[in-house]
């Protein structure tokens, strides 16, 4: 499908349609952020993470309160974990995966099911590039996991936690995806990178069975207090 760069103010549809990166004015739909137009689909190239109910995200505890925790979720809006929903305690700076339970009209999110992430590396990319990192039916992620043996948890908000296996190689591949997200033939180039790098790397895992697990990490912190 032919793709075309469209800028704010470009006509997206002659009928009012609710789409990402668009707004409606006078019964017509216009583009509001830098996007690619493919057919009548608008794919934003830029954007800020807006929490939605059911999203799995990675947050950083930013403040402790009597009522719970404030969490930085890489969005322009605050979000919190209620003390009522959790038994464990966190410290400021802890990295947690969590699910968005509720979002109010000013985009303030309430998070549930927090799990502390530890002994891995956290990287941050733009949230609009997350679909690319995951790939169709998780193909891209499976590819990286296969070559590096890492466990990778991708948050919808653009934060990625990498644990176990060849962390350095996983991070290298993920950052490459992020910087070349909108080019074609990316899967092949990532495969090439993984093949050459994993041979040179001291930690040679070779192709392994991809871990089937996807979504939040299942394991609990070794020590809960």
């Amino acid at each position, binding site marked *: 499908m032919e793709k075309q760069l469209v800028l704010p103010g470009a006509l997206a549809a002659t009928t009012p349609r609710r789409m990402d990166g668009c707004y409606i004015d006078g019964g017509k739909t216009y583009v509001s*952020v830098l996007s690619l137009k493919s057919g009548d689909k608008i794919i934003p190239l830029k954007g800020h993470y807006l929490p939605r109910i059911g999203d799995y995200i990675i947050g950083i505890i930013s403040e402790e309160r009597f009522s719970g925790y404030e969490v930085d979720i890489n969005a322009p809006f605050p979000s919190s974990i209620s003390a009522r929903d959790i038994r464990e305690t966190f410290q400021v700076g802890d990295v947690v995966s969590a699910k968005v339970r509720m979002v109010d009209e000013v985009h303030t999110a309430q998070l549930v099911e927090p799990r502390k992430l530890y002994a891995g590396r956290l990287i941050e990319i733009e949230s609009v590039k997350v679909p690319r990192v995951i790939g169709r039916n998780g193909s891209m992620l499976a590819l990286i996991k296969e070559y590096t043996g890492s466990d990778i948890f991708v948050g919808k908000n653009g934060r990625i936690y990498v644990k176990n296996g060849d962390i350095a190689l996983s991070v290298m591949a993920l950052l490459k995806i992020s910087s070349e997200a909108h080019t074609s033939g990316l899967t092949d180039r990532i495969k090439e990178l993984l093949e050459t790098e994993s041979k040179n790397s001291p930690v040679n895992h070779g192709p392994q069975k991809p871990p089937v697990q996807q979504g939040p990490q299942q394991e609990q912190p070794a020590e809960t207090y």
Partner: protein
Amino acid sequence: MAEEETAAMSAGKVPKKLIENGIRNDGRKPEDLRSLKITVGVLKKAAGSALIEWGKNRILAGVYGPREVFPKHNMNPNKAIINCRYAMVPFSSLEEHGRFGPNRRAIEIGKVAKHVFENAILTEQFPKTMIDINIEVLQSDGGTRVAGIVAASLALADAGIPMRDIPCGVSVGKVDGVLVADLDKTEDNLGQSDMPVIFSPRNGDILLFQMDGMLTKKQVMDGIELARVASAKVHELQIEALATKYGAAAAGEDDLQETA
């Protein structure tokens, strides 16, 4: 040539006539623009940025946010607030040495630029946040407010902030009794009138309109039409600047919607 002119100007000598045989001092026709080049994404740490080189003007625009409002009492629970700062560096101007930071004139320009962006940005999508727009004039030669707004518009698009449109514009004025577009500093200082106009190219709305000096009603209306034509050229260059940075993305064939 340009150096000789500026040297003559700083010595207090000014050209006797600004327009001779329909040709302006710098060789342009009345409706011509100066050379214009915009580069998007020049600052790594800013969410979005742009550098505009318009004639002898050099203006840097940087956008930060949306982010938490500070000071907190400025917060608006319905929409994002916009802070716009316009400032000239002390060495920006050819004659005055100036002082650092915004002065009375700079505060005014920051305010009118803020109103332009309040009408362009979809502020209601980001309640309780603020967006900072910084316009820093490194070298000035007339028409810096429109040039600054043109650059900041691209910085906002680069930052991915949702906008109704990419504002564009130009200043028009009357020099030696002739309506001209894109005045430089000599024409601005010695001409009869100067009128910066910013448009919303999508529907032709006027987002900023100011005037110095005197014009008749007809001249104002003709001036706006002149500005409309000239700013269409500016808008083309804005699109080109964004395409230079993001054009490669359009060449990609892969489906970007391949979600899990």
